[in-house]
Structure formats: C-alpha cells, structure tokens
C-alpha cells in the first residue's frame, strides 16, 4: 500500500519559517528517534495494520457472519469488487458520498471552521467563550444523543425548525435529505476545523499581520498574503483528515437510516447495512477497501492541489 502512495514532497509539510535551523535540534539521532517512534508503531502494527490487511483479505472471500459461508468461506478473488461495480446501489452511494463530503466537509466544516476561527482570533471574554463553547459542544456530544437532537429539530410535525419558521409539515428529511445530513454533519464537525485553524492562526506571527495592516492591506489581502502561506500545512492536514473522516462517517444513519429510498445511503451506511445488517462481511470488506482507494485518490489530489498553489 505504501508504495502506491506517491511520496509527497516533504517541503509541502515543512513549508515553515523555521526552515534553515538544523532540523534535528535536540540531537536525537536515528537510533533514539526510532525508539521514540517504536511504541506507537508497534501498537499501530498490531492493532491497525494487521487487522486492516485482514479486512483487505476478507474482501477476497465470500465470508459471511452466519450460514455455510461462515463455516467454510471460499476464496472468490475479485468477485466482490465486480459485484460492487455492477451494483447500482454502490454507485448511488459513491455519488452521494462525494456530495456529502464536498458539502459537509470541504464547504461546510472547513469554511465555517475557518470563518469562526478568524472571527474569534483576537477576541477575549464571554462572546468568544460562548461561541466556541456551543460549537465544541456540538462536536463532543455523543452521536447517539445528537441523533435525537436533530430528529427533534427537523421533525416534520413537531420539529423546532418548522415551528420557528412557521412552516409546519415541511418534511426536511424526506424532501431535502442530502441537504439535511450535510447541515447535520457541518454542525457536528465544524469544531475540529475551528480549533485547528484557531491554533494555526495563533501561529501566524502577529508582527507580520501588523506590518501588513500598516502597509494598508485589506482583510482579504492579509488573509491571502500573510495568513494563508503560514497555515498551508494546516489546511492540507485539515482537508485530508476531515475528508477521510467524512468518507467513513456513519452518523447520518442515525438520522435518516439511509432513506428515504436510499437518498442518504452514503458508503459508510452502505457498508454498515451490508456487513452488520445483512452479515455479508466479505462484500462489506471489499467496499471498505474501495473506500480506502477513493481516499487515496482524494489525498493525492489534495497534495497536488496545495503544492501547485505554492
């Protein structure tokens, strides 16, 4: 797997003002660096790499949770993949997932998270605490609770939103299911981007901003010329992680159960239905592997994108 990743230009991540210092400042040396990395790598090897490879292997079997195929699973090669590629349900889910990721992760969380971090960057006191507090509350509340909150918000008969807008009976989850889950996931995940950008903005030397302001740069120009170059690495990380997580996010299931008529059956929900509800573990594993490959493509796309802009 590692070989298929085109090794990203290390300069992209190291595009920091700190370049020029000798990089191994603490005098670690390779050996001690290895010792620092070893515990994490060991844990990852056992509890992540090994089971993940196992999943990829399961994707080549007709393995099921129960029945004869559970007792004697057969090697079926790429059958599961062929099945996925010829299943309109899978393609439907893939398209929906892209809409979901683009809408809720890239546009929703990243933009809203940055906006919030930017608005609050120089603030102190109650307003900042309250705004950041509720945004983070939305993020840390457990999904099981959040699902109820949003059902209560969007319910067509007694939902809060309809009551506030004076449109009783408007069926958000039935008539605008994708919009609903995009708003839902934006609400849910913005805090992470907000915190990450908040920390990243704190990293921009105030003196640089000050001189830009004195030179008469507008807010937008400050953003583009001073802030953006400083936080490019964070934007990349943020996009990568948020997209990856959103691709695998199962949260909307609790709100819509994939419906109506599979209109919100994103890939994570598709896998859940396949693996857990239908017990078709081999096929579910194959779909998981396909999601991984899609994520790989997306990651490479981001890396290229941010490198070109530099």
């Amino acid at each position, binding site marked *: 797997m590692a070989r298929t*990743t085109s090794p990203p230009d290390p300069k992209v991540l190291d595009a920091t003002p700190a370049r020029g210092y000798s990089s191994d400042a603490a005098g670690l040396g390779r050996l001690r660096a290895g010792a620092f990395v070893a515990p994490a790598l060991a844990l990852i090897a056992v509890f992540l790499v090994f089971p993940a490879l196992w999943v990829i292997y399961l994707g080549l079997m007709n393995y099921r949770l129960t029945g004869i195929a559970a007792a004697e699973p057969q090697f079926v090669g790429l059958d599961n993949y062929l099945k996925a590629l010829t299943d309109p349900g899978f393609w439907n889910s893939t398209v929906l997932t892209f809409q979901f990721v683009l809408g809720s992760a890239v546009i929703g969380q990243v933009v809203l998270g940055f906006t919030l971090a930017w608005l609050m960057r120089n603030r102190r006191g109650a307003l900042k605490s309250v705004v950041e507090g509720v945004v983070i509350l939305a993020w840390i509340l457990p999904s099981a609770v959040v699902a109820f909150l949003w059902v209560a918000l969007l319910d067509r008969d007694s939902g809060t939103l309809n009551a506030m807008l004076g449109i009783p009976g408007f069926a958000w989850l039935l008539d605008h299911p994708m919009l609903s889950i995009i708003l839902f996931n934006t609400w849910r995940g913005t805090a992470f981007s907000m915190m990450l950008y908040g920390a990243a903005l704190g990293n921009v030397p105030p003196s640089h901003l000050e001189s830009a302001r004195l030179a008469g740069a507008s807010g937008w120009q400050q953003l583009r010329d001073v802030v953006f170059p400083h936080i490019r690495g964070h934007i990349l990380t943020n996009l990568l992680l948020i997209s990856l997580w959103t691709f695998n996010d199962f949260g909307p299931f609790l709100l819509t159960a994939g419906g109506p008529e599979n209109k919100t059956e994103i890939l994570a929900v598709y896998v859940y239905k396949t693996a857990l509800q239908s017990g078709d573990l081999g096929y579910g594993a194959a779909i998981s592997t396909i999601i991984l490959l899609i994520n790989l493509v997306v990651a490479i796309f981001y890396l290229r994108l941010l490198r070109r802009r530099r």
Partner: protein
Amino acid sequence: MTRFVAGRIGFYTLVALLLAFFTIPLLWLASAPFTSNPTYEVRLPDFTWENFQIILEHPYALGSLVNSLILAIGTAVLVVVMSALAAYALSRVRLPGRDALLYALLLLSSIITGTAAMVPLFQLAIELGLIDSHTGLILIMTGGLLPAAIFMIKDFMDTTPKSYEESARVFGASPLQIVRHVVVPVVRPGLATIAVWTIANVWGNFLMPYLLLSDVEKQPAAVIMYTLYTEGGQANLKVLSTFGLLYSVPVVLMYLFVSKKYGFRFHGGIKR
C-alpha cells in the same frame, strides 16, 4: 467610521447567525430531560426531577459513565504520549519513507474504524486474550486513532522553532527532557486538541465496546444508551433524553478541564 460601524454590524449579525445555527439543535437536550412526558417537540419543561430519579436508580447508568471515563482517559493518555513522541521524532529526524508511511497508516486507519473491521478486531482480541478487558479495548482504540493523531501533532512540531531545543541541548538536557520541558509546552494546544478529539471519539464509540466487552459492568455509557429502547425498538425518550444529558456532561467537563489547564491558544508561552 461608517465602514467601521457596518463592519461591526456585519460581524455581530454573522456571529448571531452562527450562534443560532449551533444552539437551536441543543434546545431539546435542555428541555426534554426536565419534562414529564417528553416528545420530539421542544416545549417549556415542567421541571420534574423524576427522569433523573429513574436514571439514578438504573442499575448500570452511573457505572457506565465511570467506564466511559476509564476508556476515554486511558485512550487519550496513550494517544497523546505515543503520538507526541512519535511525531517529534518524525518531525526532527528524516526517516526514510516517512511521509508515505504516515499517509498509508492514515488511510488504513479509516478501514479500522469502519464496520467491516469488526471480525478481525474481535478475533485479534481473542487471540491476544484482550477480550472483555478495558485494557484491550483501549489498545485497539488507540491503534485506530494514533495515525491521525501523529499526523496532526507533527504539523505542530514542524512549525515550532528549534532554537530552544538547541539551547537546551547545549545545557546538557537529554532528548526526553527536551521533549518534556521544551517541546511539549510549545505544542501544548495541539496536544490538548488531540486529547479532546480522542475523548470525543472514544466517548461515542458503541460498536467495538459492545462487541469486545461482554460483562455489562464494564460497558461504557454509549452501549447503555442503546439499551434504553423497548422490545419493539421504540425509544424511551424519558430516560434517553435524561441519560443523554448526563452522558454529555462529563465530556463537556473534560473539555473545559483540558482547555483551562492546557489552553487551546497558541499565544503565550515562549512563542511571544
């Protein structure tokens, strides 16, 4: 001047809208637990404590919160310590294939958190004798979260100036001491973010704890939350809303603690 006023008005309108967007969905959680017969409608509660009484008498509710705390804190500590050490080394020493490895691990981590991985993880836990133990669950969850954590912290490590480390080295500090006393204070907000992120992830995790722990006394609150339904799968909103509130409080408190103690802002410290 008018531009300034317009800017203020724009700012406060935007903030008000954002506040509304984030606050309105929370209203139900503020009202339903205090209502005698809650529905999905947000109503002014009649301020009953009866629902809390039910939860207090529930045989597993409070114990499950303790279990959630153990799992969340245990995982957070492991993730933060391991990812900080690994990220520092990876940031300062160029190991061959470092970036490709990180990306590969990050991608693999998405498979592990999905439903399809339950069989391998379960059988792995059995083989290693980690079934029905908090430790096993903590290790498995740590493994899944570590790549993303390393990825995030490495960004912070990359952007910190190295001059302090050099000075510390001149004064004879060991690498571990340098990490503890020089690097960690600088990247503290990053570590705090990772800690809260880990806690939030673990706190909401239902499937793995359910599958790997069979003793109900060890189950975290996320699992108990799912049991508050009837035989036919109907939600018991009375207890669900109330337990939902109680279930949320510790995460919020942990967030407040971490953010107060370790701060999410970068200003201050040696950076200024």
